[in-house]
């Protein structure tokens, strides 16, 4: 894929080699290989059930691959004996359903991981939480519980919670799919800001506007494999793959 104009020159953060995943007889991912470089913002698109969620969830081993390897910063994290928790500290993840800890205030949600994992002391973690809440525009919600927030607010807190661990890469698994339409914008704006700051991001999304405008690279997955991998301009305006063309016709 050296001829891919979308791929940046940065160092390789994640390298996926021949990744396979099947649930019983059902093959979801079929021999995916690709690299993610520092500073890239990669949109992953594809029809539902194509395996794009499984793909992104494999990157931090929330799904155990049934074949192939995933290298994170040079280390094969699918090897036995690798402390996957250490790896996950460096890979942030934002979920479709937010998954905020319902039993904690917004601030405690953000503070939990850095203080429990000894990355920050409690006062440091609290300071960081307040900074991050400011960044996502929710300073006034610090002491509220998730149940009191709107969907968009929850997702912004979830982003802040991931950022509290200072991850090297952020994975977004359909971050706006569970939101009411009027709340999609506020979440996308935060993500745009992150991208501008140079965060490496992998985003499974149905927001074609976002994919086109913000990402540096777009990947189309279908039938368990990458069918097209290029700059967003090429993927959206001049797609080569027949299924991608059909897919774009149905969503745009």
């Amino acid at each position, binding site marked *: 894929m050296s001829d891919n104009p979308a791929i940046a020159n940065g160092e390789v953060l994640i390298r996926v080699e021949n990744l396979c995943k099947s649930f019983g007889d059902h093959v979801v991912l079929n021999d995916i290989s690709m690299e993610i470089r520092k500073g890239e913002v990669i949109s992953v698109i594809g029809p539902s059930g194509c395996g794009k969620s499984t793909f992104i969830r494999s990157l931090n081993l929330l799904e155990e691959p049934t074949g192939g390897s995933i290298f994170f910063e040079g280390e094969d994290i699918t090897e036995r004996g690798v402390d996957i928790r250490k790896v996950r*500290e460096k890979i942030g993840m934002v979920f479709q359903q937010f998954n905020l800890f319902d039993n904690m205030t917004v601030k405690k949600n953000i503070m939990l991981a850095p203080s*429990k*994992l000894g990355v920050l002391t409690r006062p440091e973690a609290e300071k960081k939480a307040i900074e991050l809440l400011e960044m996502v525009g929710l300073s006034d919600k610090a002491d509220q519980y998730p149940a009191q927030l709107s969907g968009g607010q929850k997702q912004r807190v979830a982003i802040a919670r991931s950022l509290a661990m200072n991850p090297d890469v952020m994975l977004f698994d359909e971050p706006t799919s569970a939101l009411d339409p009027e709340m999609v914008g506020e979440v996308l704006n935060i993500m745009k800001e992150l991208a501008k700051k140079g965060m490496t991001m992998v985003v499974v999304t149905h927001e074609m506007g976002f994919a086109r405008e913000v990402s540096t690279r777009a990947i189309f997955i279908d039938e368990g494999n990458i069918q097209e991998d290029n700059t967003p301009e090429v993927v959206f305006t001049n797609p080569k793959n027949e299924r991608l063309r059909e897919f774009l016709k149905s969503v745009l």
Partner: protein
Amino acid sequence: MKKCKKIPAVMLAGAALMGLFTTAVSAASGEEGNLQPEIVQRLYDNFVKDDRWKYLLEGLGNTALITFFAMIIGIVIGFMLAIIRVAHDKNGSVPVLNLIAKLYITIIRGTPVMIQLLIIYFVIFAAVDIDKVLVAIIAFGVNSAAYVSEVVRSGIMSIDNGQFEAGKSLGLGFPTIMIHIILPQAFKNILPALGNEFISLLKETSISGYIGLMDLTRGGDYIRSVTYEAFLPLIAVALIYLIIVVLLSAGVSWLERRLKKNER
């Protein structure tokens, strides 16, 4: 809501008991006019004479002691069993412990608690001079743990898997996720079922008399054996159980409301 429902139930039970009481008393006394002195005399014979109320008090003390400590043992072992089983289901780890936990639950739930009590007293501790109350605490605690573990497990399973995944994605380990995220949420969900279990436990301790221990039931029964009157001592015992259960469930719903408030 809960409270509104409970109060009429208690009042109904109380009213039923009172009805039963007065009917029986008037039936026994035969004559309406003699009702007052007759009942006073019987109350005196059953509870005051020779300090017979002390049997009930001593029995109540033992019943409370057994129930309280058995509850604690039940909670401790029950949570451990549940966490072992969930750890196995979620991560495939601890297969041996999981097998032991399953075996424990199967055996304890598969045999009557009375047989367990008798086995622990007459077989396991046969050669040891051990306090009977302690034997009962162990027997009922071990028994309750099996039920508590399934209640706790169902509570943990009721928490969305996304909570686990979010914890994992941050790099948190299984114990941290359990203690700080899952159990606090699960505990709130299982409180009513736990309350249920401890109400059952309290009443199950009424078989403690089988190992020759003076619990509340045995205390009432002892009075019956000296006064040859069944009605008053047994009704008194029933009323005391009822009052404890009402207090226990009031405590549970107080805790429920408090935990709910924490999240609003």
